[in-house]
């Protein structure tokens, strides 16, 4: 267990941004944190990185306590921040060089490493330009390169591929995978890209209002929703008949758009379509993490969430 949080909590005045979170992450695991804006992802990462002090609970990182041994924790981690954090007036190379110095990259390999990460993020030909002349995506790539530079045991990546083009993103994914599989680096990544989480993560936690509301492998999370999904356009759908079918787990209809979730794969599709009515369009697909996310953090869940917001307020103010 290289990362373990124990009831870690952060309150900003009456707002509980992270609410008694317990997480255990194994060495070499790629662990994803998903959640809507303001869910508490960055706050959680900041506490793990010793930048914010938990109001309650604690976390052990690489065997060190974030509150009592922040120095050891910092030596174990690398972080890519959500917001821009490179120095505008310096060149890309200089930013990396400074990082290498501050994070104790040995002198013999400094230049080599810098070269390596610059190649990875495809910034070699811009390395000697000042960062203020970079595009947003180039900055992001530089910061990512910086986080990887000192080869930490644990990487905390806060939306690392935000705003990157598909090709660069693919490169980064491959590199992150290699780090975890071959280098045994543990990676905690937040993202709003479901395909990223699906593709990369061994396990995913969905966090909302500071609480973990689901935690499993992407495959299992998707399985919870169902085995396959049918979307169809039908003028007058025969919903009753569909609902009565034993392997149909969920049916929703809105203005002639019908979506059906099946709990089993395979031969039933024809039966469903036959019973449904006169369809002008049909799409058959497997559930995605996006479906999981929407279901977990969507409307129904939100209503519950509003209640718990009140509860949290009560707890925080002691009233």
């Amino acid at each position, binding site marked *: 267990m290289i990362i373990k949080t124990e009831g870690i909590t952060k309150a900003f005045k009456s707002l509980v941004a992270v609410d008694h979170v317990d997480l255990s992450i194994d060495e070499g695991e790629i662990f994803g944190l998903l959640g809507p804006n303001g869910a508490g992802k960055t706050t959680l990462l900041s506490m793990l990185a010793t930048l914010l002090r938990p109001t309650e609970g604690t976390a052990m990182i690489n065997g060190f306590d974030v509150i009592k041994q922040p120095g050891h924790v910092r030596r174990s981690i690398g*972080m890519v*921040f959500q917001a821009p*954090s490179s*120095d505008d007036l310096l060149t890309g190379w200089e930013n990396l060089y*400074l*990082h290498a110095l501050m*994070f*104790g990259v040995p002198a013999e390999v400094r230049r080599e490493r810098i070269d390596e990460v610059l190649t990875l993020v495809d910034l070699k030909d811009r390395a000697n330009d000042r960062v203020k002349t970079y595009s947003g995506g180039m900055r992001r790539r530089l910061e990512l390169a910086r986080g990887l530079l000192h080869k930490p045991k644990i990487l905390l990546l806060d939306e690392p591929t935000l705003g990157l083009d598909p090709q660069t993103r693919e490169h980064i994914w491959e590199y992150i995978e290699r780090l975890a599989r071959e280098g045994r680096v543990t990676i905690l990544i937040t993202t709003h890209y479901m395909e990223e989480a699906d593709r990369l993560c061994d396990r995913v936690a969905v966090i909302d209002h500071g609480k973990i509301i689901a935690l499993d492998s992407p495959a299992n999370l998707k399985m919870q929703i169902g085995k396959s999904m049918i979307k169809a356009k039908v003028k007058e759908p025969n919903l009753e008949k569909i609902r009565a079918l034993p392997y149909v787990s969920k049916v929703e209809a809105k203005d002639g758009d019908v979506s059906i979730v099946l709990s089993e794969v395979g031969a039933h599709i024809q039966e469903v379509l036959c019973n449904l009515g006169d369809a002008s369009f049909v799409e058959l697909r497997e559930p995605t993490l996006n479906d999981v996310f929407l279901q977990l953090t969507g409307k129904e869940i939100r209503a519950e969430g509003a209640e718990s917001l009140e509860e949290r307020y009560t707890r925080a103010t002691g009233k």
Partner: protein
Amino acid sequence: MSELTGLYALWYREVKVFLRERSRIISSVVNPLIWLVAFGGGLGSAISFGGTGYQTFIFPGVLMMTVLFTSIFFGLYIVWDKKLDFFKEVMVAPLSRTTLFVGKMLGGCTDALIQGSILLVLGIFFGIQYTVYAVVILVLFLLFVAIGITSIGLAIGSQMSSFEGFGLIQSFVVMPLFFLSGALYPLSGLPDWLMIVVRANPLTYIVDGMRGALLGIYNFPLVEDVVVSLAFVAVMVGVGTLAFKRMSAT
């Protein structure tokens, strides 16, 4: 060892950034020149002290002022650093807070001393006659100002989260330190109440030491000037280090 490398990195960053911001260097040198030409020249046509022209008389004080202003604002600038996430990158580095403070402080001192040196050279055009001894003493005292005042700036800046208090610091810290230091007037013949305040200001001893070395005009023995300055520097470095230990990242 790694702390030392980190220290070097922090210093390197400050100096690099400083040298790239030409406009900052130019304005910080033009400002004291205006003092020398307009104030020193204007008032100097009417008064002189101990056979020395007024312009020459205030030259050490204006040198001190240049370093004072650069240093204090360098220190306060850390508020800006904290706003940009660049500082978070520094805060997650495996470096002690003391190293952070010392690295920043040395960076600021270097900036301030570069400006002081430019002004020292320009002094030649104002008819200042240097001896080797005078230059050594001047630089030494400028170093004291730079370390002490950068530390104050960093200490205050590290505890602030916005630029709101800047005006207050300007009025209640920077201006009194400068105007009550004897930078612009001789200490002989000051009213008692003013003398008490002036003698409580560590910068008084720094100006006194500089003027003594350059012009032979002084109120306190050199040893006293040095001892008071050193005590001032030591206290401020201590305060700055403590302030950094208590600083939060956001």
